[in-house]
């Protein structure tokens, strides 16, 4: 038997620079909010995932605090994409008919300073490509998008000012989101004038670590219709990791082919296309990433994303608002929680409950979430 998948509720905690609460406390708050939103109790949940990158043993830490109902609990980690990966796995389980209700909670207390590289010479061999490139200074997180930004400027004549506009927009949107870490406006001069990290990306074009949790309750459409006559459906999703293209090796390293493939899967499954999107949440870990991801989703043509952004098309009130809650840039990035936060925002928008940042008449929203070469794309509709 198979059923459609619905999102029944969502909850997001305050994302804060310094964690004032422990992992279990933040997760419990997000779960309580999401369950109340869904009209369910923890006893109604049949299977649960925790998305988290930096704390092994997160599943018992998070779920045994809530209740010991004997359901299967699992920790999912593919770095920054853990939240959406968990939601997609929940989708597969519900669509297959194996379970009717699933809880996903993303939660993270980030280590201090720069995002620690997940590989080190004690555990990874020196000639693993990621290891060698790390010790020779080739592999840095901002650098990965700086490369793409430089080539993009060369190919399409884009400017650093156009990339910087992403940061200006997302920080401005974060002022409308009481859970966002920054809630502070920055001018384009502030953004361009901040410290250079990896040319052309300055400090304010790189997302900062934050600490927080976000939870999403999913169910079969049948189960959802017991609670609401107009459920939000997770109507399609696509999931990929890094792919080597022998015909075009550049594709493997330097484009967003993983997102293009994930989006194609999500659009096919949902019977929709980029022209149907009323809004999108994309992985803006770096300003240039948002530009490349909106192109990979097909929201604008290849090479047009920077000008599309600079023209205000992705602002709230533009033709397709992007990162309405402030994105990673404005909310900060608690790695395991971010994907769940993105889905929660689209859910809130489709329910018409996004308050000051509401996109009028939003009926279909996209989520794109990246993590260490993986890209997940989800379509939510109401």
């Amino acid at each position, binding site marked *: 038997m198979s059923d459609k998948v619905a999102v029944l509720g969502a909850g997001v905690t305050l994302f804060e620079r310094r964690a004032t609460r422990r992992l279990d406390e933040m997760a419990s708050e997000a779960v309580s909010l999401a369950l109340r939103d869904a009209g369910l109790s923890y006893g109604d949940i049949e299977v649960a995932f925790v998305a988290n990158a930096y704390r092994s043993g997160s599943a018992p830490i998070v779920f045994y605090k809530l209740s010991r109902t004997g359901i299967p609990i699992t920790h999912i980690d593919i770095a920054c994409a853990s939240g959406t990966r968990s939601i997609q796995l929940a989708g597969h389980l519900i669509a297959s008919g194996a379970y009717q209700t699933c809880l996903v909670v993303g939660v993270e207390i980030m280590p201090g300073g720069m995002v620690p590289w997940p590989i080190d*010479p004690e555990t990874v061999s*020196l*000639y693993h490509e990621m290891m060698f490139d790390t*010790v020779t*200074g080739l592999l840095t997180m901002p*650098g990965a998008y700086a490369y793409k930004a430089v080539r993009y400027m060369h190919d399409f004549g884009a400017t650093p000012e156009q990339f910087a506009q992403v940061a200006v927009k997302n920080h401005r949107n974060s002022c409308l989101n009481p859970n966002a870490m920054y809630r502070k406006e920055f001018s384009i001069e502030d953004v361009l004038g901040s410290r250079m990290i990896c040319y052309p990306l300055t400090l304010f074009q790189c997302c900062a670590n934050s600490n927080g949790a976000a939870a999403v309750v999913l169910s079969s459409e049948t189960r959802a219709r017991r609670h609401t006559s107009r459920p939000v459906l997770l109507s399609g999703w696509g999931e990929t990791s890094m792919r080597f293209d*022998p015909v075009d*090796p550049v594709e493997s390293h330097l484009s967003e082919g993983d997102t293009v493939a994930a989006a194609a899967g999500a659009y096919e499954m949902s019977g929709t296309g980029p022209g149907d999107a009323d809004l999108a949440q994309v992985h803006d870990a770096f300003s240039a990433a948002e530009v490349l991801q909106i192109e990979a989703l097909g929201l604008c043509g290849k090479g047009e994303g920077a000008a599309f952004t600079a023209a205000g098309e992705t602002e709230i009130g533009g033709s397709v608002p992007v990162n309405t809650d402030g994105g990673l840039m404005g909310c900060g990035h608690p790695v395991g929680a971010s994907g769940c936060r993105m889905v929660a925002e689209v859910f809130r928008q489709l329910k018409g409950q996004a308050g000051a940042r509401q996109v009028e008449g939003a009926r279909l929203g996209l989520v794109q979430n990246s993590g260490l070469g993986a890209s997940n794309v989800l379509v939510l509709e109401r």
Partner: protein
Amino acid sequence: MTGVDTGRETSHLGGRLITGPDGDPRLIGIRCLDCGTGAFPATDYCPGCGSGSLEDLPLPRAGTVWTYTVVYMGGYGSIVADPPYATAFIELDDGTFVHAPITGCDPESVRVGMEVALTTVEAKENDLGITLTYAFEPAVGRERGVGS
């Protein structure tokens, strides 16, 4: 130790770099015997098809910068250079892409399309056993073509 001396040439960095008797360097990638994919660095399985049937692929020494960045912050400590340093994806003359540091020039002078050639770099002190590694440096005209 990362160098294995055969008398004729020395292998460094797990076989990805060899130097000849005069110190002239060469990068060694792989070619897949099943699907023909060429790639650098060498791996145990073809990145294109997963085959384990691979042969060594000596790469040309020269190429052009396909894209680059200058790292001011955000690295994890390089054994090649202190920030700011330039790094690049280089398209070699046979079409293979190599990810490498750019040395021998002001990092801010690196540009897309810049002609570069392979060179070796003495590694900074490290506890990984690496003494010699590679980079690319600006090279034009005849100098660029030597040995490639």
